[in-house]
């Protein structure tokens, strides 16, 4: 964006307009392609991977929304688990329909987010990360401790399915959910509230001096992020039907964080790209069996060393290389 605006100031507006239209059409095309996928493949396994990817996209996008306020929550996997267990337990013990359990699981997670976000809003950067990390550990331990209701170490079974029959209905439901949540969070990020959050991220002193209620906004964004984490967890519970605390531990939280960082934390598309790559790419190497985690590690290292802006920054990096090469040529010609 910046380099374009600087090199051609006259046509910058036209450029960015065209660029936006190109991005929009690419997004729509991508979604249409995803809609058509079940027509071309009937493999349950492929659908399963895509369904999980869509569910995780909801979580990673909401995780990135929290980070726009300068907070680094290391408990998002645990919040997903709170939603999953709340919905699952309501479904099994109270016999509620999944159309009630999913929203109530999400709301409960948001309430917990407020409860924990308020005292934690005093903590900054590393301390916030640590505090939320312990909270995540605590959630797992509470699930184990209440083994009589949650199933403890052996996992929780007996969640009632959302749809019967093939996975295609799940596929469209989770795709629709991912698109709807992404659009909602996109609108949120570029609203007045989102702008205030970015101001807090840049300098909380300046932000409070111009009348932005810092604590309120920080708690609010955690509540919003937790709502979507709980939502995805609840859908996960009703899709997978078996949940265990181990799928919401620190490893999961870090995995979600990796999705955001690999894609690019500075861009809204980052977590979507990152989650797709980190879930789909290792699947191509499924034949490697126990070697396959090395593929994800390789992706992480490539992103760290070569694309510090995340994988969505690839075009910029390539353009920079191209420009540098051309300049090098010019210098060579001149001398």
């Amino acid at each position, binding site marked *: 964006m910046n380099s374009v605006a600087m090199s051609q100031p006259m046509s910058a507006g036209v450029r960015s307009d065209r660029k936006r239209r190109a991005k929009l059409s690419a997004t729509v095309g991508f979604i249409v392609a995803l809609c058509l996928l079940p027509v071309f493949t009937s493999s349950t396994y492929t659908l399963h991977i895509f369904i999980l990817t869509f569910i995780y996209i909801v979580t990673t996008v909401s995780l990135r929304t929290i980070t726009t306020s300068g907070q680094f929550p290391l408990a998002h996997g645990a919040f997903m688990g709170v939603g999953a267990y709340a919905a699952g337990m309501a479904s099994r013990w109270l016999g509620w329909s999944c159309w009630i359990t999913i929203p109530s699981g999400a709301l409960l997670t948001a309430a917990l987010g407020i409860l924990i976000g308020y005292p934690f809003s005093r903590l900054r950067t590393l301390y916030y990360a640590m505090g939320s990390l312990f909270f995540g550990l605590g959630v797992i331990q*509470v699930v184990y401790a209440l083994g009589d209701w949650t199933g403890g170490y052996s996992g929780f079974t007996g969640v009632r399915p959302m749809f019967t029959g093939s996975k295609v209905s799940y596929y469209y439901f989770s795709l629709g959910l991912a698109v709807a949540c992404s659009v909602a969070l996109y609108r949120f990020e570029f609203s007045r509230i989102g702008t205030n959050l970015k101001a807090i991220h840049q300098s909380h002193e300046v932000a409070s001096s111009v009348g932005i209620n810092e604590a309120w906004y920080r708690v609010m964004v955690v509540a919003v992020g937790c709502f979507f984490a709980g939502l995805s967890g609840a859908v996960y519970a009703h899709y997978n039907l078996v949940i265990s605390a181990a799928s919401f531990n620190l490893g999961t939280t870090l995995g979600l964080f*990796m999705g955001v960082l690999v894609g690019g934390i500075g861009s809204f598309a980052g977590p979507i790209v990152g989650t797709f790559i980190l879930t789909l790419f290792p699947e191509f190497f499924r034949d490697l069996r126990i070697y396959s985690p090395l593929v994800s590690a390789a992706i992480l290292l490539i992103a760290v060393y070569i694309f510090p802006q995340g994988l969505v920054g690839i075009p910029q990096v390539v353009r920079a290389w191209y420009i540098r090469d051309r300049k090098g040529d010019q210098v060579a010609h001149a001398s």
Partner: protein
Amino acid sequence: MGQAIATTTNVLILSSMYILVALGFALLFSMMGLLNFAHGAIYTIGGYIGYQFAVRLGLNPWTALFLTTVIVAGFGAFLEKFCFRPFVGDFNRIVMVSVAITTVLQTLINIWESGEVLTLPPFVTGVLKSGRFAVSYQRLVTFAVGASLLGVATWFVRRTRWGQQMQAIAQNTEAAFLQGINVRRISMIAFALGCGLAAIAGCLMGSYIQLSPFMGDTMFAKVLILVILAGVGSIGGIFLTGLLLGALDAVLPLLMRGSFSDAIAVVIVVVLLLFKPKGFFGHEA
């Protein structure tokens, strides 16, 4: 009474192991602001490399311990130079690198050992008997080694030239640099020291618990709790908090079901953190 003695030795052993791993982590955290998620994996490979030397090669356990420490410390220096130094101060990329390192190490261990259950042989055999009480020499020796290493490490950080330079860097990196301290070299030494201590803890614990590629995760959770409770930049605090944590871990399971004790320990930490966000002994923002 017998149980009281067993509990006390457990408290002391657990505490000294926690402190050994936490000391290195805390040193890096306060010196470079580095949240090294790979520290648990370093502890794990300590146990596995010790196993290779002691069982596969049949070396004397003490030689194995020494060789493991040297190798892992060298590995730590390598990690510092190529994986962490380029990204110091960039929280996101440090997290990515350390998660990648953890994944690689755990996967390599899985491939190498194909998930077998392994335990290191005891360092010494025999039981110390006095009247009705009995404590195995192994436990006493583990504690003695752990405690003396902690003493040496503390002396190193507090009294030696390199250690004092580390403290200077922790206080203010730029000022230390302007005083002519070679920040890069000292960081590398600190990294090697931290990794070496973690490897020793891994070796020593390896004869009590079964080695598993994921044993570092449990340890890492404890270490995080310890370092944050103690507060950044306080070495004395780590000792006291380590004893407290070891005591909680050894005593709570006697009073209630195991899963409850873990939950209560974490809840206590969260509550403490809410009231004292800088830890018990912390003095930095």
